[in-house]
């Protein structure tokens, strides 16, 4: 979008050299600093600690550990690395898992250069970068959680009516601007609604992981 903004420290994780180079070149031309590139997941996790990127552009299909695992590590790092998933694969379960693991953006590789640079910038700012496909997946996940048999300590996240409305419009291909117009909201409010849907899902996922770890730990003590 605007090249003259503050340059970002970006890491590129992709096992295809062609894409790694192309993405790194686009970022460099836009004035960003590509602090690290990696073709494997473990390498990415290792060098991220030293390179301290603000944003990581991660492909989901990696030869060793999956992009989902890489995302989990990076999002949990201190300071956390914001993850933009850039994937050519339409593997929906993987995309959803990556987002639950902490990725805040998802973009198809076929997206144009401008769209990509804009997505990197927004990811760095902490905005959620959604495609209609991701919105469909997130909607489906909330429905799945709502339909799952409730437990006693049921804390499954729920969408507000407004959040559902916004997410459906994103899934139907409307831009945030169009949504803001249609619902008579500010662009920022639309952005916040979308982000909340992601935040609740990620929080729930972390709680589930902790719960799982505690249950396992208690079992071992028995």
């Amino acid at each position, binding site marked *: 979008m605007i090249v003259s903004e503050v340059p970002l420290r970006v890491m590129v994780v992709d096992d295809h050299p*062609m894409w790694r180079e*192309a993405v790194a070149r686009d970022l460099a031309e836009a004035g960003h600093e590509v602090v690290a590139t990696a073709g494997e997941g473990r390498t990415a996790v290792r060098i991220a600690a030293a390179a301290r990127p603000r944003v990581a552009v991660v492909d989901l299909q990696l030869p060793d550990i999956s992009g989902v695992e890489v995302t989990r590590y990076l999002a949990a790092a201190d300071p956390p690395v914001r993850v933009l998933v850039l994937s*050519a694969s*339409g593997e929906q379960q993987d995309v959803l898992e990556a987002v639950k693991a902490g990725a805040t953006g998802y973009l198809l590789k076929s997206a*144009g250069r401008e769209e990509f640079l804009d997505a990197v910038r927004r990811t760095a700012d902490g905005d959620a970068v959604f495609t209609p496909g991701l919105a*469909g997946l997130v909607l489906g996940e909330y*429905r*799945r959680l709502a339909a799952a048999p409730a437990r006693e300590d049921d804390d499954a996240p729920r969408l507000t009516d407004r959040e559902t409305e916004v997410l459906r419009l994103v899934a139907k*291909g409307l831009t945030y601007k169009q949504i803001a117009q249609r619902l008579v909201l500010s662009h920022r409010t639309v952005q916040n609604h979308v982000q909340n849907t992601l935040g609740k899902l990620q929080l729930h996922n972390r709680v589930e992981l902790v719960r799982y770890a505690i249950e396992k730990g208690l079992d071992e003590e028995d």
Partner: protein
Amino acid sequence: MADDTTGGTTGLDAALWRSVAVYRALALVYAAVVIGKNSGGYAHPLGGWAVLAVLTVWTGVATLAYRDPARRGWPLLAADLAIAFACILTTAWVETAPHIAAGRPTLPVSWVAAAVLAWAVEGGRRVGVTAALVLGVANLLVHAFAGTAGGMGNTTLNGIVLLFLAGLVVGQVVRLAREAEARLARAVELEAATRERERLARRIHDSVLQVLAMVQRRGGEAGGEAAELGRLAGEQEAALRALIGAGLAPGAGDAPAGVPAPRTGTGPERAADLRPLLTGQASAAVTVSTPATPVPVPEHDAHEIAAAVAAALDNVRRHCGDGARAWVLLEDGPGEVTVSVRDDGPGMPPGRLDAAAADGRLGVEQSIRGRVRDLGGTVSIVSAPGEGTEIEMTVPRASAAFKV
């Protein structure tokens, strides 16, 4: 004839030979009991104990030797049978003639059947029967040497027949088990090959997708003729991805992607995942969004819904031109399935659809509303000039139950 069946080191073979070894050991115990009980009446009691010693030693040797596939050959089998043969014959010398005439068993009793089992396991039915016949001859010779052939009783005949049956049945069962094992091994091999092929296909597809996406991206940036190439690459990427998606979905492999033809002879009780039927209709201009988990609906309903979506997309192409984009959203609600088709075309003034239907142009009316109504669902169409058109179809999950 299964003579050339190689022993190999398969689990089945090891288990079979172990069974023979167990039989041999148990039969040795029985033979020891019988010799201990009868030795008082033997013509040569020491001979009886000597035979027992031979049986014991050979039981140990055979158990160890048969365990090793390399030593499991005809020399060992021949030695096994020869020792059994000799031990039977010794009966004529150890036992008294009256006892033999009275139908007392041979010294090794049922221990000799171990040799028959070994032959049957190694060579199958006919080889097993051959070994049984050899030992049968030994039994007859005992009577011949003892001079009691005239008084040969049913007991001897029973023994021979039992040996014969053991060789026959075990040989046959072993052959069947080996065949079953070979079939299983072939199936496992085939499955591994298929999985490897799928893995390779995924890798290749992934690489191709990456390149197509790159061409699309770069082409779009370069503009002009390259943009056209980029557009073509984008279409191929979408088509290939849809194809892979359809191929991976269970039960979707037999339906050509994007052509949801109603099938005949399928009951409404069969459930189909609606997702691949919709993602198959994705293209560079059509984005399809679905949940990550399957959306099962009765098969007939799935095809009808997919056909309604196809009609809606067809409508978009015809009325909004090639440049128009469309988005399909599949939602899996409690008790119902919602599919929305939105386009960014010029939209329609209100009343246009009714006018079209009145004119006899039944496209939307029949292909979308009619289909969904038949499934017990509802259709809402929202459109305004300049704002595109949005068609939302909601179909209850239970519709199948009412139709049967």
